[in-house]
């Protein structure tokens, strides 16, 4: 269970920060942030974020629940772990971002549909085959979100097909798919209980 909030944080703030902490396995050390900004300065996609990671941590602390969960910041995280190895407080920043994404997904508070939709399609393929299905994923995603990119992408797609780097057929479903589903269902129940 998360540790008690530091004394200077109000009860309302602590609720949201603790909620976020509870979404993250292991101790994320989120509450240790000293607002130095090393994370945002190290982040390759910070320029395209609504708020830099440092700001998000301050907003979490301030209890700005809605703003945080609707922000595109966690969705723009590329999981490069630069912030994670540079943070002087050793906060597990990518894990915080994953936790925020999962909370936003659960509550339907996603900033726009493209990034969450990509994740959902990816995950659905895993549920169906046990493996990732690149062509299916990309085809569905482009048809839904990037229709205008398709003509420009066609030569690449044809190249990938011609060079045997993409198969049109889905991957062979793993033998243990039903067991895998049972494992994931049980894991979802355990996460909901927490």
């Amino acid at each position, binding site marked *: 269970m998360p540790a008690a909030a530091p004394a200077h944080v109000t009860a309302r703030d602590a609720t949201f920060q603790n909620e976020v902490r509870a979404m993250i*396995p292991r101790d994320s050390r989120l509450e240790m942030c000293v607002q130095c900004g090393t994370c945002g300065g190290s982040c390759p996609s910070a320029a395209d974020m609504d708020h830099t990671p440092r700001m998000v941590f301050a907003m979490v602390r301030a209890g700005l629940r809605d703003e945080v969960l609707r922000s595109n910041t966690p969705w723009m995280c*590329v999981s*490069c772990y*630069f912030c994670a190895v540079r943070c002087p407080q050793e906060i597990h920043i990518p894990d915080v971002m994953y*936790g925020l994404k999962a909370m936003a997904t659960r509550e339907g508070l996603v900033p726009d549909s493209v990034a969450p939709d990509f994740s959902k399609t990816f995950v659905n393929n895993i549920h169906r085959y046990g493996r990732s299905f690149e062509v299916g994923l990309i085809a569905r995603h482009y048809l839904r979100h990037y229709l205008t990119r398709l003509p420009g992408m066609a030569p690449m797609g044809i190249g990938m097909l011609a060079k045997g780097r993409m198969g049109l057929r889905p991957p062979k479903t793993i033998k243990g798919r039903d067991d895998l589903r*049972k494992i*994931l269902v049980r894991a979802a129940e355990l996460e909901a209980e927490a």
Partner: protein
Amino acid sequence: MTRFLYYPGCSMDASARAYADSLEAIGGPLGLELDEIEDWNCCGATEYQGISPTRAYALVSRNLALAEKQKNGSRTVVAPCSACYLNLAKTEHYLREDKGLAAKINTALEAGGLHYTPGSIEVRHLLDVVFFDIGIETIHGLVTRPLGGLKVAPYLGCLVTRPDYDHRWRSNEHPREFDRLLRTLGAEVVDFPLRTDCCGGHMTQISPATGFELIRRLIHAADQAGAEMLVTLCPMCQMNIDAYQAEMNRYFKTSYHMPILFFTQLIGLAFGFPPEKLGIGTEIVSARQALAKIGIAVPVTEAQEPVGAGAAGPPRRPRAKRTGLPMPAMPGEDGEAPR
């Protein structure tokens, strides 16, 4: 013979087939025996954690549990993909550190008749095993066709040396081991400070402008340093820089032609394998020109031809040119050779 358990990951059978083929070719001489984990499942890449962390760890743990069951004299799982490697290594590390998480995950695994004992499996990336276990002396002894000063930019990407839970690498951000391996093959390693910068990951799919900029930075830096190609160890990095290079060029109105190969392909070339055995020629941005300079001819197969046009992509239809919207001309159009 060095025997390991092997987790190939989904892309080895699809977009990174060249990685798989070249690994298979060099596995013999290197004495690598890789036993695939039976019925492994996807690692969730960087997507599943953003949907549900507990489910994501359970997903990865199924692979660890299967590996534990299959132990073949080795307790080490080798993964060639950076994302697969990190997901497996991270899950293993967290299960060892967090007893509560381990209990939860094992409760979930029980539903599928499995169990994992934290600490029973060690997870390592392919480069780690090649560099530290097989070693550059052994590799040096196997080189029959040194790469003759082929100028390469060593590109490791993010996840192999970061966060590096087991402290295997000299540095999280500027490791030099990969450089040494490539030099052993006879390549000239250019000064490439972005060696562990991000390729954009899934950004080409969810925020193209962000993704293209990250790809541009890498290619620009390699180009500035005089590299003839990038060398990578990750299917995702290869895919982004190779398959999206033409789209990136269009976006920025640039005309880069920067091939990217897997390090296993270069090892294979240095060991004297013919290029076609190593999946060379399946890259979208052709490495033919760069390899021709060091006297390695890549045979042309019919399947490769329509897309071998390089940075600007295949020629556009003439109709589009006459009647299309006013568009800036790009080098490489009008049939002139791209840079």
